């Protein structure tokens, strides 16, 4: 989109009235265009006051209780006091070689957590094997590319090796139309492997970045995918991630992105 076309979208952008792809185009433009965009601030400055026009309405009394309970549960899984919680939003694989500190995790009750960790490893492996069979057959038939199929199988084997461990979780990955399918596993110790097929090749400095989203927290980058024979993969320690967290992948203009560039090309939820 041109600078002028982006300006045309300013009012809808600040009001939140764009489709996801348009909104993303505006974001990318604002991040990369050197020209000033005063219209965005000018129009955007009015938007917060719109809410002032509403008569305040009291929510039910038990909403406070629900929120405070969920927040208290959060504390149980937060990093220890003094841990650099703020690093979670800014850590990149480059400047954080150790496992990144995650934002406070989604509320998971003690009981649920115990059940999760106690789930037998064979159940995970069985689930992973089914996923492999389905995805493998689908991919080979679709692509008919033996080298890619072999590379895919090799990396799926790494994923399965982690999935077999006690306390691991797996995610079946796919784009919104079922494309870019793959598999990810995260071990109890944070060791992770993920593999995807069908991603568009990158050009120039572009990379595919993996993100972890814990609960409703902002996505945290965990590493760039390597590409070989049309297969994208990542093997590295990503830190402990609670079940129910989402692993998502985006194509970034270059390495080291701190916030994802939409659209999400593939994603999946970690489950035990």
């Amino acid at each position, binding site marked *: 989109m041109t600078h002028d076309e982006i300006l*045309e979208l300013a*009012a*809808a952008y*600040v*009001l*939140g*009235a*764009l*489709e*996801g*792809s348009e909104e*993303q185009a505006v974001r990318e433009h604002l991040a990369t265009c050197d020209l000033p965009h*005063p219209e*965005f*601030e*000018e*129009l*955007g*400055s*009015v938007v*917060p*006051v*719109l*809410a*002032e*026009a*509403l*008569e*305040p*309405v009291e*929510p*039910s009394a038990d*909403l*406070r209780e629900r*929120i*405070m309970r969920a*927040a*208290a549960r*959060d504390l149980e899984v*937060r990093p220890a*006091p003094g841990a650099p*919680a*703020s690093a979670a939003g800014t850590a990149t694989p480059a400047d954080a070689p150790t496992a990144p500190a995650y*934002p*406070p995790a989604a*509320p998971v009750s003690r009981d649920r957590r115990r059940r999760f960790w106690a789930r037998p490893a064979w159940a995970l492996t069985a689930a992973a094997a089914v996923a492999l069979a389905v995805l493998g057959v689908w991919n080979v038939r679709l692509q008919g590319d033996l080298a890619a199929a072999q590379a895919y199988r090799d990396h799926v084997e790494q994923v399965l090796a982690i999935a077999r461990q006690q306390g691991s979780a797996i995610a079946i990955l796919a*784009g*919104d139309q079922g494309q870019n399918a793959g598999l990810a596993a995260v071990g109890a110790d944070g060791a992770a492997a993920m593999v995807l097929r069908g991603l568009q090749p990158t050009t120039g400095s572009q990379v595919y970045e993996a993100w972890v*989203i814990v609960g*409703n*927290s*902002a*996505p945290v980058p965990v590493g760039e995918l390597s590409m070989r024979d049309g297969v994208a993969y990542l093997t590295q320690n990503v830190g402990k991630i609670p079940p129910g967290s*989402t692993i*998502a992948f985006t194509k970034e203009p270059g390495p080291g992105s701190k916030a*994802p560039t*939409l*659209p999400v090309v593939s*994603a*999946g939820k970690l489950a035990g």
Partner: protein
Amino acid sequence: MTDPAAASRLRPANPADAADQACLKRIAGGQLDALEELYDRYRSMAYSISLRITADATLAEDVVQDAFLGAWRNAERYAAGRGSVKTWLLSIVHHRAVDAVRRRRPTTELPGHEQVPPLALTLPDVWPEVSAGLDREAVRAALDGLSDVQRHAIELAYFRGLTQQEISERTDTPLGTVKSRMRLGLLAMRRTLVGDGSEVEGYPTGGSRETDR
């Protein structure tokens, strides 16, 4: 983007925000009572926005819960230079409420993949507010000062979560007209609320490019 003088005209010093920022610091440190304090200060505004957009009491409460837990978990990500804590918090509420209603409308394209919490990926930029001290009457008067079609377009966008395309279809109005109604409406409100002096120098804010056809 804007010159600092214009920015400071837009954002007068605000003692309430200083208190909010202190509160947010304690939230980042994991202090539950600070979250309760923030909740008590903004629960009714948050809920009124959410309820207006979702028109569903249960969903509206879920959205508010989501938004406050989002603030609880991401307090350290708030950037003081980008606007007040109140603006930040209420924009989270607004975005989550819009996402919630769009998820119920299959025709609307959602950002990202369905399994990804959309808000985590589309956390709004936070805009400097016109003024923290505006009261309801002043804002309503500014809204009332708009033409009916401008007000309607802004309401459908901001309070109903419609996209500009959906507004165009629903009101049987060309998309270009919807765009200029929203734009001219916001500019008119700004003029009413802060006066002409705040317009950014060197940028044409009126002109024939987008008149309300």
